[in-house]
């Protein structure tokens, strides 16, 4: 029976073959319909009707594909593939937090290849360059206006308990690892630190304006420290679980290339450290260092948000100047590529800053 409650045509066709035909299979009936076994079943009325049905079906129009079908499909599919690629580029992860620092380099994003893959992108890129040039000129004009304005150039407000910004001498006392041998010596100068104080007062604030300037020049790295493996582990987990700061002000984007890390000229920290809180047994801490890259706008606000994010994760944070720009580029995602589609007020240059996380009491 069919699903409609009618007898199976196979049964009816079989019965109509008559008593001399014997049992007939579906395969034989099919062969009769399609012309391979006409002798056996060809005279059956229902089979003949099904053969006629086939002829009508084969005679139906075979419309040609409409113009532009393939082009539309290519546009859609390649656009989806590009979107996926850009999303993946923005999801690089550091691969190691052990010493010596080693990592698999993330796949490099080649702007030239990306542009060549699609002719329309060249035009888009040209338009973006024009917009960028206009935006830069406007930005310079605004910057000049801001410098001329007394309101725009106050010293950085220091919260109570804060230390003055960028005194290399005080930084040296607080940070023996990155102590500057002389003041204003690029390469190891601590701009200021953001460390919770013992008295519970608000931590000192780095000079974010100076930091943002160095950030734009690629000459800034962020050092974040925790006093125990557990503390740093929890902080790293917090950072990797929620790698994007509020309002996307910063993003922990990927591990850092070894060459870029080497250019920071960080001191070796392989020696074990013995730590005790006076009441418990002495803990042996093996110093560890992991290197990350934060993607953020080169603005004091974004830098402050990054420092706050690291501090909220339980780390002590200092900002450090290096002599030469660190050779890392931010990995672009769809938002970065489409920056021109957002309001002009949000147009900021996106940069990458090294974030070195150490377990070191």
């Amino acid at each position, binding site marked *: 029976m069919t699903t*409609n409650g009618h007898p199976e*045509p196979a049964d009816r066709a079989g019965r109509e073959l008559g008593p001399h035909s014997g049992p007939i299979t579906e*395969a034989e009936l*099919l062969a009769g319909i399609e012309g391979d076994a006409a002798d056996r079943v060809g005279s059956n009325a229902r089979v003949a009707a099904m053969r006629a049905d086939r*002829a009508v079906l084969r005679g*139906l129009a075979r419309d040609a*594909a409409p113009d532009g079908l*393939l082009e539309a499909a290519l546009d*859609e599919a390649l656009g989806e593939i590009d979107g996926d690629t850009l999303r993946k580029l923005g999801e690089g992860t550091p691969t190691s937090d052990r010493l010596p620092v080693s990592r698999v380099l993330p796949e490099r994003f080649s702007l030239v290849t990306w542009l060549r893959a699609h002719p329309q992108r060249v035009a888009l890129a040209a338009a973006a360059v024009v917009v960028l040039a206009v935006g830069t000129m406007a930005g310079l004009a605004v910057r000049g206006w801001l410098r001329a304005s007394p309101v725009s150039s106050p010293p950085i407000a220091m919260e109570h308990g804060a230390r003055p910004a960028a005194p290399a001498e005080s930084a040296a006392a607080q940070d023996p690892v990155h102590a500057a041998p002389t003041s204003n010596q690029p390469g190891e100068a601590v701009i200021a630190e953001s460390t919770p104080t013992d008295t519970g007062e608000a931590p000192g604030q780095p000079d974010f304006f100076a930091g943002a300037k160095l950030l734009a020049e690629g000459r800034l790295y962020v050092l974040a420290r925790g006093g125990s493996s557990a503390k740093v582990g929890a902080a790293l987990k917090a950072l990797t679980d929620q790698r994007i700061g509020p309002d996307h002000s910063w993003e922990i984007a990927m591990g850092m290339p070894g060459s870029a890390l080497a250019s920071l000229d960080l001191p070796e920290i392989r020696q074990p450290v013995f730590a005790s809180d006076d009441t418990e047994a002495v803990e042996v801490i093996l110093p560890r260092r992991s290197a990350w890259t934060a993607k953020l706008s080169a603005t004091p606000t974004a830098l402050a948000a990054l420092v706050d994010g690291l501090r909220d994760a339980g780390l002590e944070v200092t900002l450090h100047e290096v002599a030469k720009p660190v050779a890392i580029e931010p990995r672009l995602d769809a938002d970065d590529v489409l920056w021109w589609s957002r309001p002009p007020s949000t147009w900021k240059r996106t940069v990458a800053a090294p974030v070195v996380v150490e377990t070191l009491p």
Partner: protein
Amino acid sequence: MSRPDPDILRRAQAGDRDALDVLLRPELDRVFATCRRMVGGRQEAEELAQDALVKVIRGLPTYDGRASLSTWMTRVTINACLSWMRSRARHSGRRPISLEQPDTLAGEPGVAPGVQPDEKARLERALDGLKPEHRAILVLRDVRELDYEAIGAALDLPIGTVKSRLFRARAALRVALEEDERAGKPERVEDA
């Protein structure tokens, strides 16, 4: 069964637009014809064909060359069609049959001599009432003119099952046509 040029295939799998064009353009009409006979309406067929082609392009890196490209694309296309038909059935029940204007049928290219527009309309109504699996195998056999082996590859069925299902599909089509004749309303449109 022809295999694509390895260099063209490799470039196409890497997303090279020109290579994709070279590889896919010869298959365009077959993809569209499959969709056209699976869903009936031309506009729906265009959307479905584009969707199927997008799936082909995105899935091309998984094509290993064991089947012919045409067979592999047929499989992707048929799966897209079946998925679309099942989704439509879930969300809106059976759609009203899309009937073309009778006066446009006679002049439509490709209609075999002797096939009357009325016959074609009846056949399309009957096809629309079939289960998607039955419709698919009839389209592959009679519209695409594939042999049993290629149909088996496209539907992932052994040849014995292909023959059995094909016969049952023909039988179901005959029943539907006879019901249509009994109803004697060639211009009717089914309700959902």
